[in-house]
């Protein structure tokens, strides 16, 4: 089983098996908040993917090259959040300046991402719990972002459809979105770890 299998493994893990939203409970606020229509859902999904990839990279370097050697693991929260917040702000400014079109498509979702716990959550997960290599961490960050994208895209399609169904009044809007997400999560239990193990070893 070579590198290829490992890459596939990480991708499948973070997109399906440990989907940030449907199994890990990370990033639910934007998932519920921005899934009303598909356009913004897709925009949010890509923005999250982008930031998550960069954030895992920077925080990994910070953690393994600075905090661990200096014995300062306890400062991870404060330093990670600083890095992520600055990163988001920097990216926002950069995109705004250099590509107004991209900014219109993605940038407007960026401010929401600082407080999206999926970004920070994945960053913590890969360095602290999973203890992955740099490459794998970045890949995991990227895959988790794609997992977010997939979940929010599916959700937005369901919600757009529900918009014109005859959902009972009391359950319209956020409640039915939660229930739908619950049913989605139940179905996603089909993607168990054993499946992954049997597939890619």
């Amino acid at each position: 089983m070579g590198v290829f299998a490992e890459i596939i493994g990480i991708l499948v893990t973070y997109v399906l098996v440990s989907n940030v939203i449907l199994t890990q409970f990370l990033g639910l606020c934007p998932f519920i908040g921005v899934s009303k229509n598909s356009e913004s859902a897709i925009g949010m999904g890509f923005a999250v993917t982008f930031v998550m990839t960069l954030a895992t990279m920077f925080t990994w370097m910070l953690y393994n090259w600075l905090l661990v050697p200096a014995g300062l693991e306890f400062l991870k929260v404060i330093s990670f959040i600083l890095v992520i917040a600055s990163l988001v702000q920097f990216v926002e400014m950069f995109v705004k300046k250099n590509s107004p079109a991209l900014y219109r498509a993605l940038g407007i979702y960026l401010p929401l991402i600082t407080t999206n716990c999926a970004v920070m959550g994945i960053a913590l997960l890969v360095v602290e719990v999973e203890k992955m290599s740099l490459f794998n961490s970045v890949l995991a960050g990227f895959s988790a972002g794609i997992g977010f994208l997939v979940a929010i895209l599916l959700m937005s399609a369901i919600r757009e459809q529900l918009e014109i169904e005859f959902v009972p009044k009391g359950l319209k809007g956020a409640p039915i979105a939660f229930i739908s997400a619950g049913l989605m999560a139940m179905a996603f239990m089909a993607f168990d770890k054993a499946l992954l193990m049997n597939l890619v070893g």
Partner: protein
Amino acid sequence: MGSIILGIFIAIISIGLLGAILGAVLSLASEKLKVEEDLRVKELEQILPQYNCGACGFSGCSGYANAVINEGEAINKCTPGGPELLESISKLLGVEAGNLEKMVAQVHCRGGEKSSVDQYKYSGISDCNAKYQLYSGDKLCKFGCLGDGSCIKVCPVNAISYDEENLVWVDKEKCVGCEKCVDICPTNVMKMIPYSADYIVACSSQEKGKVVKSKCSVGCIACSICVKKFPEAGFVVDKNLSSVDYTIKSDRAPVSEACPVKCIIHPYKETKDN
């Protein structure tokens, strides 16, 4: 002990440095990458709650602020902000409610199941616009309320409900005067009246009195008693139909009493809750 102090020292240095570097980079970047922005957007953004929750349907508070200023989005989309916020936004943007009297909608027809005559047996969607496609509705009178509640469906504040005769009725306390019901109503029986209106002529038929009588027992027969007997009360009969001139303030209770078909009524009453 020494090692602890050393540890704390290292911590201070590294995080302090990290903070300083990031601060410097960001502030440099913000100058280098500055983009001119509409000041009003910034201002509006400041008074929004900054939850960036997306409840408004936009990408965070700044997205919403932008939409309000540049795309004329309604200012009441931020639910977390509540009424206080609404007030401060309207102050900021100078969108005043104005001091015109509030208008509310009301149905000008009382021809319910018992009082009006049917023309045919309808089978189809329970919706006024759909029913209207077939000979303008199943009532013999073509001016009346069809009672299928298209207006109920569009009213954003649930101000419309059925009364005990299964005709719709607007609760003027809830109505915010958006006129959506007026737009959707195919027979134009839903009309706007001032909030303070005390009586309405609950009929819209422009047919001759005799014809009206054959179709509905509570229709306005244009007998003109309201005009002739009470010249001060502000009633006008035009096109076989009486109506009220609300600019005239007067006691209209006796007129209501005198109306032979009793179609001059209060625009407020109890409705079934449903």
